């Protein structure tokens, strides 16, 4: 096994290696100066699939923050700092509906969530139009989805340095989202 | 072949130094026991590494203990004593067949060695099963608080040692059963030696995890 043939092995292995590593891992990208889709993109999103006549094609906006670890972590920070926990209390619900379950009143796709934040919703969800920049909206939407386990496990955040109140998003199991109207929330006595 | 540099007489030489055999060692034994054999030293090396790992876990346990006023912290139950004590007793008892098969191995008595090894393997598997139940006896999930994490760390660290030793003893038993190579007897004796270490090193961990919360 002379030294030269050993070098040939190394070059062959290195060549194969670099081929594999060509793609940059999108999950871990830190996009600081990227601009995310702004207001008009999510304004025209319909929240229900029922439409008279032939349903027009669904307008989908792919959220850049989807599956990006940095954006979800930023969303988690903003969720706590802007007092969303005041009503949704870390996802378990309180005055506001719970976000960790698979019941979605106004849609679970990122653009639905962004529309909910911007428009506000009856029964107390304030409208944050012009208050939150586009980047942060998509980051918040990505985090809310990870609360319900809808984001990939890799980029979802682990525990944070606070008192432990729930299982962290990384270990929240995926459950297929189910539309539910705010009215058929079971009365208090029937709740399990 | 050109030679480079200012190499005066006593500095460099081209040819290799001829070796003149003066002693014959072909009559030296090839199967020896205890610290004369190389694998014994290897086992001691791994014991040192594992002892260092366990000491890191136990040191972290006492370091974290300093952060709490009440240990275990409020609203955290004390670990049970029943299952862990049973598991400790079974582990210590497992040393009896271990010593016996080590002695038999030194006497090259294959039948006795294999018999006692099976007894030791069964008892160690019982101890491994009890250890898995011990995780439940800690009465706390590993992610509840720092106390739970370090308690789990100490018990899990030693669990890896116990599992490794059990499977190694099982492997040697199966080998000894099928064939009778003389050179495997020292290996069996070393496995016993490792079992003594594995059980001995568990006692301070047992005291740390199960008794210290009651004393502090």
């Amino acid at each position: 096994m002379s030294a030269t043939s050993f070098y040939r092995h190394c070059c062959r292995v290195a060549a194969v290696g670099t081929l594999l590593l060509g793609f940059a891992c999108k999950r871990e990208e830190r996009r600081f100066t990227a601009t995310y889709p702004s207001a008009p993109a999510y304004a025209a999103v319909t929240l229900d699939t029922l439409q008279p006549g032939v349903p027009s094609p669904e307008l989908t906006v792919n959220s850049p923050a989807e599956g990006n670890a940095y954006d979800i972590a930023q969303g988690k920070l903003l969720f706590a700092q802007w007092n969303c926990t005041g009503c949704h209390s870390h996802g378990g619900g309180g005055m506001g509906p719970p976000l960790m379950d698979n019941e979605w009143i106004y849609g679970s796709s990122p653009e639905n969530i962004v529309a909910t934040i911007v428009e506000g919703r009856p029964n107390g969800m304030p409208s944050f139009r012009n208050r939150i920049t586009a980047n942060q909206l998509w980051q918040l939407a990505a985090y809310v989805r990870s609360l319900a386990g809808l984001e990939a496990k890799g980029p979802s955040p682990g525990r944070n340095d606070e008192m432990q109140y729930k299982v962290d998003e990384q270990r929240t199991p995926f459950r297929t989202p189910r539309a539910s109207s705010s009215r058929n929330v079971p009365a208090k006595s029937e709740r399990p | 072949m050109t030679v480079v540099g200012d190499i005066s007489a006593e500095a460099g030489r081209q040819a290799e130094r001829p070796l003149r055999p003066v002693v014959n060692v072909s009559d030296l034994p090839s199967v020896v026991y205890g610290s004369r054999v190389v694998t014994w030293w290897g086992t001691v090396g791994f014991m040192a590494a594992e002892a260092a790992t366990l000491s890191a876990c136990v040191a972290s346990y006492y370091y974290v203990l300093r952060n709490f006023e009440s240990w275990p912290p409020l609203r955290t139950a004390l670990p049970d004593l029943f299952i862990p004590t049973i598991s400790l007793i079974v582990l210590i008892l497992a040393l009896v067949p271990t010593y016996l098969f080590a002695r038999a191995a030194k006497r090259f008595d294959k039948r006795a060695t294999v018999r006692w090894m099976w007894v030791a393997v069964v008892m160690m598997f019982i101890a491994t099963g009890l250890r898995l139940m011990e995780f439940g006896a800690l009465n706390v999930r590993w992610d509840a608080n720092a106390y739970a994490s370090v308690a789990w760390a100490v018990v899990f660290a030693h669990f890896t040692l116990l599992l490794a030793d059990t499977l190694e003893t099982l492997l040697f038993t199966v080998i000894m059963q099928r064939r009778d190579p003389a050179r495997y007897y020292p290996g069996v004796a070393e496995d016993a030696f490792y079992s003594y270490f594995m059980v001995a090193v568990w006692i301070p961990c047992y005291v740390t995890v199960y008794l210290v919360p009651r004393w502090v």
Partner: protein
Amino acid sequence: MTWAGSIFDTAGTPAARIARLAWFLIIVSGVTYLLVLVATGIAMRRARARRTQGELADTRPETANRLTRNVAIATIATTLILLGYVTATALTGKAIAWPLNAQRPLTIEVTGHQWWWQFRYRDSVPSNWLTTSNELHIPVGRPVRVILLSNDVIHSFWIPELHGKQDLIPGHRNTTWIQADRPGVWKAHCAEFCGHQHAKMLFDVVAESPAKFDQWYIRQLASALPPTDSATKRGHDVFVQRTCIMCHSINGTEAGSNVGPELTHIASRPSIAAGSLPNTRVNLARWILNPQLIKPGVRMPPNALSPADMNALLDYLETLK
């Protein structure tokens, strides 16, 4: 030697004592280093002579004894130098400790955030507690006890001209003290790696006479004046109706969020963006429009504002003296 900004350009007793010890150690180390080099040089020259005369290596017993003596002397010398070194360190350590007989000490609580500083002046009268950010004023001559807390990761509070650094560790309450013996304006850097913008997490230190300090203190305590003319009124509306209100607070207005630095007296500060940008109108505009171009990774998002809104906002912010 006053090399600006270095640990020798001291303005406080602790830093001065440390600088003196540092000089002592540097000189001792330098001398030791020269001795080692000289010894190596002599050894090389002496032995080269032996090579040219064709002699063999000198392994005679008397040379061995002489060399043993030399090595023993060198080792004992090293030990003595180290003893001197340790005692000098202990003495300086005692000298830079918190003076027990400090009169009228001022207490400041420093909280480190990811990539900006928050200072809370804990006056003896609780209602006079002042919270500012990214700018530290201290009166000359008064010892200042500094309490170090962190909100997220480990930072390090370090003003080279006044004292050594101490880390801000979450979960720990670290303390240090500083005292300025002469007025001056310095720039202090965060000294423990804390993420993307560790490099530009600075704060300004202004040491001034007690009188000027009290004036500054009273002015800072005052809330912001409501806007008077229409331009600043519109600027105020942009501030409270757009994205700024989510993170910043201005006492005297509806903005009360403590996510980001408070801006009640932003116009009075020499720099913005945690001490890394001079506080001019152009810089403020560039910073508000897209902070990521100046400090990539910082938590403040880019804000799309129309030029009219931007100018009104800048006018309003400039009134916040």
